């Protein structure tokens, strides 16, 4: 109860009953959203790549803009030209997160799939595995570990402090901070939208007129969440690129 308003507990806002199956393999609303996202992204690129016209039109135009954005805006800025091999992975990450976030904002669905921690965590673990494997293959395990724990160009005495920090950051905290950023941003956005939706319904029931103000804010915040949806997809992708790039080219 807050100002006489019955605010639902957080667990009611993000947990959905299973539609089919039970336990860990149950299919609920969030899982359906992820399936829909995957189908949409795959279908979009299939349609875009079906007829490769020299002068792109329609879907091909959008797909080429997305690829260009990932290549020029993300990979070239952080990994350099030899990072272009990772375009498929990073493009998949970017389009999947962006589409999932946008679907989560559609009125009537309004539940971002990334607001359940398992979704971003899985993608972060994938990035974690990729950058560790790339570093071990490119640098060799011992050199990789030395590069992480004893970063060059630092006074010797600083290693007492830096070695444990760097070790835990790279091997333990990085996947969590990468996924938590996406998760917490979307959960926070979801909660803010729910707050104003609850206010709107409460004021509609009580006064019929007073709902205008929270409803206007609800619409404005949905617009703001569109920005967050794009920004978080961008940040997740660019950080994945930075981590993989660091594994490819260690600091000398």
């Amino acid at each position, binding site marked *: 109860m807050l100002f006489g308003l019955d605010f639902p507990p957080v667990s009611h806002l993000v947990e959905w009953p299973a539609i089919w199956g039970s336990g860990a393999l149950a299919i609920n609303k969030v899982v359906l959203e992820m399936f829909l996202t995957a189908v949409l992204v795959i279908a979009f690129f299939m349609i875009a790549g079906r007829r490769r016209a020299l002068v792109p039109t329609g879907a091909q135009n959008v797909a080429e803009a997305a690829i260009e954005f990932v290549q020029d805006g993300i990979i070239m800025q952080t990994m350099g030209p030899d990072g272009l091999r990772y375009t498929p992975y990073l493009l998949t990450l970017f389009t999947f997160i962006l589409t999932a976030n946008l679907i989560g904002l559609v009125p009537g669905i309004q539940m971002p799939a990334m607001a359940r921690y398992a979704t971003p965590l899985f993608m972060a673990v994938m990035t974690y595995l990729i950058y560790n494997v790339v570093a071990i293959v490119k640098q060799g395990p011992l050199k990789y570990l030395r590069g992480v724990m004893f970063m060059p160009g630092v006074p010797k005495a600083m290693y007492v402090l830096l070695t444990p920090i760097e070790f835990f950051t790279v091997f333990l905290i990085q996947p969590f*901070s990468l996924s*938590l950023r996406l998760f917490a941003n979307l*959960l926070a956005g979801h909660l803010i939208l729910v707050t104003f939706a609850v206010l709107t319904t409460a004021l509609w029931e009580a006064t019929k007129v007073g709902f205008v103000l929270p409803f206007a804010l609800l619409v404005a915040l949905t617009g703001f969440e569109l920005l967050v949806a794009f920004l978080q997809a961008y940040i997740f992708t660019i950080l994945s690129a930075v981590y993989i790039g660091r594994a490819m080219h260690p600091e000398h």
Partner: protein
Amino acid sequence: MLLHLLAPLHFFATQDSGELLKGLTAVGRGIVYGGAAIGPGIGIGIVVGNAITAMARQPEAAGMVRTTMFLGIAFTEALALFGFVLAFIISG
């Protein structure tokens, strides 16, 4: 002074402990998130402010500065989000 501050605690201790736990949990959540938001708030301000200065001085480098700015924001913001998640994990 300290006694005056602790007086409400004595009052609460005589109340129903379930209610007390709930109230203290809510207070704890507020303090955790509020505290976690201070540092990153200042940090993001510094990052963006300096990025704007850099862009104003060298508009031709704006693209590169913007990419780095978003990276800096993302790293700084993570701390506030840890606090946000921790606030939910705390339960009475």
